[in-house]
């Protein structure tokens, strides 16, 4: 499978591990990615409210993708939303299309834009991917976090249920990891409140952490660099603001399936996550050994107890 690739600004910056793991996992899944040339920022969350500007900036990328003759894959939920929204407007809004075609000096016929998760679970297919999983991720207890723009609005993103998506759940299960129920899976991480009201942003992020921990998770799996920025990059700030310890590794879904594919930690850039997933990765497959150890310890403790009582009695 050949696809055009739009990484977006964050994947060349704070989310570089998402870029690296996307490339590594795609290669292993038989996808050939061609990065579109001279792409620009989609306007991100900063222009999302300035609809025409956001769509105009995004439309240039779609125009560049069109030249490759391939479908376009986007790993960032915000970029994916912005580019898809622009594609839709270019096809349905004549006045907008005329403006952009004039600005770019080219005509637009449309490009098929897909989020990377959509490509992995639907085009490659979860079952086909599972055949490439050589290392069962036993011991990983994950909650799937979809966030907002990956599944909403369904008018733009159609590949999963907007209220209760399951594609990421199924992918996690296919790796051999445990996928725990998570009612916060499509709740907002507070990303777009970081600059307008940081304390609110952190309350929303904290809610996600709280429920993940209550569910018994030892990591959160995401498919968006903005969600990752809040949950991973800002985790220490949330800890500070709420005077608490969270210590929860946040993995991109590409890092998770990469581990199951037996790819190296280096290829998946697992050392670039701000909250180190080292202990989590070391624990993979060791759960059963631990259980046995605990049983032995309990037996020894049981034996020791009566003796202690005797001592007290004396």
């Amino acid at each position, binding site marked *: 499978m050949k696809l055009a690739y739009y990484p977006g*600004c964050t994947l*060349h*910056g*704070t*989310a*570089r591990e998402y870029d690296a793991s996307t490339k590594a996992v795609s290669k292993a899944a038989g996808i050939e990615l061609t990065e579109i040339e*001279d*792409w*620009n*920022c989609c*306007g*991100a*969350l*900063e*222009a*999302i*409210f*300035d*609809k*025409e*500007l956001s769509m*105009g*900036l995004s*439309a*240039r990328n779609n125009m560049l993708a069109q030249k490759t003759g391939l479908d376009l894959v986007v790993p960032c939920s915000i970029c994916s939303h912005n580019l898809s929204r622009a594609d839709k407007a270019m096809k349905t809004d004549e006045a907008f299309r005329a*403006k*952009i075609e*004039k*600005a*770019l000096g080219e005509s637009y016929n449309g490009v098929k834009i897909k989020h990377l998760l959509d490509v992995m679970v639907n085009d490659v297919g979860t079952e086909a991917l599972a055949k490439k999983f050589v290392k069962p991720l036993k011991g990983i207890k994950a909650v799937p976090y979809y966030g*907002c*723009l990956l599944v*909403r*609005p*369904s008018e733009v993103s159609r590949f999963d249920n*907007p*209220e209760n998506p399951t594609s990421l759940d199924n992918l996690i299960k296919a790796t051999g990891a445990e996928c725990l129920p998570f009612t916060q899976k*499509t*709740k*907002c991480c*507070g*990303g*777009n*409140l970081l*600059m*307008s*009201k940081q304390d*609110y942003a952190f*309350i*929303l992020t904290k809610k996600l952490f709280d429920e993940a921990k209550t569910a018994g998770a030892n990591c959160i799996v995401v498919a968006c660099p903005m969600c990752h920025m809040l949950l991973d990059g800002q985790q220490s700030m949330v800890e500070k603001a709420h005077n608490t310890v969270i210590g929860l590794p946040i993995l991109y879904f590409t890092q998770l399936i990469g581990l199951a594919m037996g790819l190296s930690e280096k290829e998946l850039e697992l*050392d*670039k996550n*701000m909250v180190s997933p080292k202990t989590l990765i070391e624990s993979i497959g060791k759960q059963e050994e631990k259980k046995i150890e605990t049983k032995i310890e309990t037996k020894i403790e049981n034996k020791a107890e009566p003796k202690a009582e005797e001592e007290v009695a004396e």
Partner: protein
Amino acid sequence: MIKTSELDPNFKYEIANEPGGENIKRCFNCTGCTVGCPVTDIDKGYNPRKIIRKALLGMRNEVLTDDSLWLCASCYLCYERCPQDVKITEVMGAIRAIAQREAKAGKIKLNNPKQLFDNLFIDSVKKNGKWYEAGVSGMFMLRTKGIGGVIGYAPMGMELFKKGKLSILPHRIKGKDQIKRIFEEVEK
């Protein structure tokens, strides 16, 4: 107390003329947007239904200067659930665009730091074609929290730099002229 003499009946049309604001008049005030809103969940003072209602009534100045306009997290939950397809998230954007113009013309004052960040971000995209993280974040910190803010952010910046996640210089694309023309066309 709402004084009808101070209402601006044209405000709803003004919003409907902005990209994204087209469907505002469809709202029948069902509150579906507000009951699921994650921001309302933590701040009962934030009420998207009220913002739309006030806008439809014509409370122009009150809506444009309300800080809660900047608290929409753009999570699109209300957009997804609205039975009238008002496209509330985008209506918020349309109202913000009017507020930004009024502020630039010196008619109102906006206090939320978000609009400064967005403007710095968009300016950097206009100039480079990509956003310049170190420059925009540094300037934002300096202008909102002073030099102390920049120093406070420095450890986080250093950590990102060490991990190869932050570039000191901006990345510039070749097609900057096209970006410039896009800005010209959409600002017309």
